[in-house]
Every structure is written in structure tokens, then in C-alpha cells.
């Protein structure tokens, strides 16, 4: 589960943490678009390095590294699959895809490491989505660690009644793991019913306008960053579309 370390919020005293979540979301959006319009190694490498820089500013490189380490096998699979499926320019393209995936992982890691679940909830609500739906989303996020714990509890219970999940051939073990599905689903459904009751017992839905504990406020730096990032992103997209980017960007690095 150290893979998830890069997506759990950690409270740190950085300017990034103090930014409005909507600003950070715009950054994520722009980076996502930029990573998708490029298929070449050099531009993606530049974008990737800049995401590392963002994570450095957020003093969160440690957690990010743990997630990237956990992703290693995934990255290798992406590289291999691309390598064997495209006809030419194999090495460059596969490396580019690995970089693109890394950029997407890293920029979302950047977002979740620096945004509290509450801020996220507020941001979603502030964007006009009705509270019922925004609550669905943020509650699902909030319950991911709980679900992981429930999974472990069920696995322990099954093992304690003789279900072999540690030894034996891989096929038998996978088959045994399927015994986890039904109890997990039933357990989580019952839990959601209990949560619904608890919410109602505490007045959820009683008033259409709630008093929030925190309020999001865009400061000058937020406008500066979000508009700045949008402008840069727009410029890059335009340059790419008009073919005005320096040919350096398109250099082929490997001959395979």
C-alpha cells in the first residue's frame, strides 16, 4: 500500500499547500492537456521535470518517490506493450508513453498531497455541483482507507477459518481470493446504509443552505498562478498546433 502514499494528504507549510484547490486543479488540468498533446520524448521530459519541481516546491518528494517506486512494474509493462505493438520509432515512443504516464501520476499526486479532502469537497461544491453528488465523490475518497482496512479484516477472518491464501499454486490462490468479494460487497453496502442513517440523524438535508466550516477564497496569488498557467498552456498548445515549436523537440533519440 505504499503505492498510495503519494495520494494521501500531508499537512506542510508551503505556498503550494496554501493555494486554493481550484487553482491547483487548473494546474492539473493544464498539465494533463499538455501531456496528452505530445508524443515525443523531449517535450514530455520537460513537462515531467517541471512536475518534479512542483513537488519539490510542495516539499513532497518523499511521498511521491514511494508511489513512483510502487509504479515501477506498471511502467515496465507500459514500455514493453508499446515497444512490441508499434511498427517503428519503438524506443522513443515507448519511453514517451512511460513519461506521459509518469506525468499524469505525478501531477495528480501533487494535487492530492497538497489538498485536504475537505478542501476538495468545498472546491467541488463551489463549482456548482449539488451537495448530494459532491458528497458522494468526497465520501468515496474518504472511505478508501477504511475499505482497505475492511478488506484486510475479511482476509484475516477467512484465513482464520482455514482458507489458504499464503501457500500453494497461483491459480488456487487467486481462486481463494475470490471468496473475499461477496463479504466485502455486502459489508460495504451495509456500512453505507448505516452512514446514510447517521447522516440523516445529524440533520443532513434539513436546510438547503449550509454553514460551511471553512470557506474558500481566491487570493491574489491564486489568480496569478491560475491565469499564468492557463496562458502558458494555451501558448504551448497553439504553438504545437501551428507547428511552430522548434524542431529540437522532435529529435529522435534512439534508432530502434
Amino acid at each position, binding site marked *: 500500500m505504499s503505492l498510495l502514499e503519494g495520494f494521501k494528504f500531508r499537512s506542510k507549510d508551503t505556498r503550494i499547500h496554501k493555494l486554493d484547490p481550484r487553482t491547483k486543479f487548473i494546474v492539473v488540468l493544464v498539465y494533463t492537456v499538455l501531456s496528452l498533446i505530445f508524443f515525443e520524448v523531449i517535450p514530455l521530459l520537460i513537462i515531467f521535470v517541471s512536475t518534479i519541481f512542483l513537488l519539490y516546491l510542495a516539499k513532497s518528494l518523499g511521498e511521491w518517490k514511494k508511489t513512483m517506486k510502487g509504479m515501477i512494474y506498471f511502467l515496465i509493462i507500459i514500455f514493453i506493450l508499446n515497444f512490441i505493438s508499434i511498427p517503428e520509432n519503438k524506443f522513443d515512443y515507448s519511453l514517451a508513453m512511460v513519461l506521459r504516464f509518469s506525468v499524469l501520476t505525478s501531477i495528480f499526486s501533487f494535487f492530492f498531497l497538497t489538498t485536504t479532502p475537505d478542501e476538495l469537497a468545498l472546491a467541488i461544491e463551489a463549482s456548482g455541483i449539488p451537495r448530494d453528488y459532491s458528497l458522494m465523490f468526497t465520501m468515496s475518497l474518504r472511505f478508501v482507507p477504511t475499505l482497505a482496512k475492511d478488506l484486510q479484516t*475479511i482476509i*484475516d*477472518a477467512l484465513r*482464520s*477459518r482455514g482458507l489458504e491464501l*499464503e*501457500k500453494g499454486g497461483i491459480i488456487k490462490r487467486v481462486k481463494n481470493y475470490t*471468496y473475499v468479494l461477496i*463479504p466485502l460487497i*455486502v459489508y460495504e453496502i451495509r456500512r453505507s446504509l448505516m452512514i446514510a442513517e447517521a447522516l440523516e440523524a445529524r440533520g443532513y438535508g434539513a436546510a438547503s443552505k449550509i454553514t460551511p466550516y471553512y470557506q474558500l477564497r481566491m487570493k491574489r496569488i491564486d489568480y496569478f498562478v491560475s491565469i499564468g498557467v492557463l496562458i502558458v498552456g494555451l501558448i504551448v498548445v497553439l504553438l504545437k498546433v501551428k507547428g511552430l515549436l522548434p524542431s529540437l523537440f522532435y529529435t529522435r533519440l534512439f534508432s530502434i
Partner: protein
Amino acid sequence: MANKENVIETKNLYFAYEGNKYILKNINLQIKRGEIIAILGENGAGKTTLIKHFNGLLKPSKGEVYILGKNTKESSVAELSRHVGIVFQNPDHQIFSETVEKEIEFAMRNFGFDKSYIKERVEWALRLMGLEKYRNRSPYTLSIGERKRLTLAAVLSYDPDILILDEPTAGQDFLQKERIAEMMNLLRHRQKTVIMVTHDIEFIVNRVERIIILAKGEILYDGDKREVLTNLQLLKKARLLPPQITQIAWLLQDNNIEVPTNILYIEELLNELLHLCKKVGLDESARRIQV
């Protein structure tokens, strides 16, 4: 190496979930076959963490745990559970079958028991826990007390040598507690080893001989129940109350009525009071109490 006489043995057991924040420290235990033991201690003392080592769910960070001579680090939980049945506190964490019957036979099917033997044992377990009429029902339609009985039935059915119960009497009414006590008697007669983690002092007073007290992850006391349950200093350290009868004896002592302070049972207190009445010449009162 483990002493062959012990069904459970721990040697310098230390456990931490991460780093060196040890939840269990230097636990050394020898438990012999047929012992009936209660593990007491306040919440957070490490009781549940300790029993999870007895079927391999947790492996020691330092030290060793031997179950029936086997080092738990070398066995899987499924293998160890064949001999050690643990019934945890929350039944909803241990129920996962479509019907009550299937729940009870789950373990035996995993162990590859003979079909007719499984049928026999399922019948026995259903009858023992009073669940026959629910046999084809979904476990989720049972009440919480019934679900607790089901988890007990599911573990008793496969007849493990060692039975560990985590808070078996929590939330149970008097009838159910009697049922559980009956079951423990049955197990005692069959030379099974039973370990109970509990807060229910009144329940264990009559039913165990040996008490282990855990405090802050260490063993505070391991021995005779009378010595611990009547020892004020020890109980204070463990943050436990003595049985009510003992408390009465102490109150009487405080009020200058000469009864011994190591009383555990109603009968003992009664005898002492009768004795006192006779001494003081209160034969009338003595005859009335003697009813």
C-alpha cells in the same frame, strides 16, 4: 526450541506494527493442554494483538511463537487455524456465507474433511448454539446475538485443540452467558485449551483458574486467580475492579467486620458471615441466613 508439553509458547515476543512503537513487549508465556485461562487488561493493553499471534495472523517483530511445537513464522494462518480457533469480537467481521449452514461448514470444507463427518458436525454445532431453525437463512437476517452464536458455532464445529474467545460475553443476555459457560465446561471435559480475552470479571471468577493480566503491552501478572483478583495494588495497576463479592468483603473489613479480604465466592462470604453471627451469639440471625 519449544517445549513439547506446551500447546502455546512465546519466547521474548515483541510486536510493533511499524518501527519500534512496540505494542507487545517481552511476552513470555507457556500454556499447557487443557488449561482454561482468562486474559485481562484495559482497552489498548494489547490483548487482541497478542491472540492474533496464536494463529499466525500476526508474526512477532522480535522473538518466537510456537503453536503445538511449530514456529508460527514457518506456517500459514490456514495451517495453524486447523488447531487454533479464534472467535473475534465483532461477528460481522467473520461472517461471509450465504446460509447459516454453509457458514458452519466453511472451515471443515477448507480442511478437506469427509462429507458425512461435516454433516454430523454441522448438526452438532447448530444444536449446541440453538440455531437449527435458522440453518437455511442468510446470516445477515439474524440478530446480533444470534450472529455471535453463529461465529462460535462455526469455530466449534471443526473441533480445534485450542479455542480462543475475544469478549465472548460482551452484549450477551444471561441465558446466552449460561450457554457459553456450559460450552466451556464441555470443552474442559474434552481436554481442550481455552483462552478468553475479557472484561467480564464476574463471568470468569467461577470458570478459570489462571489469569494473565496485560498492561501497556507487558505481562503484569500470570498466575492464580485468587491471588490477583483480591490484590488491591495489582488490580489498581491493571485498572481492573475485583468481583463484587470481593468488594463487599473489603467494605465489610473497612467497617471493622472481620472477614478475610481474599474472598471470591458468595459461599465463602456467606460462611464467614454465618461464622461471625454465631461468634457474636446472633443465633436467630444465623438461622435466618442459613435458609
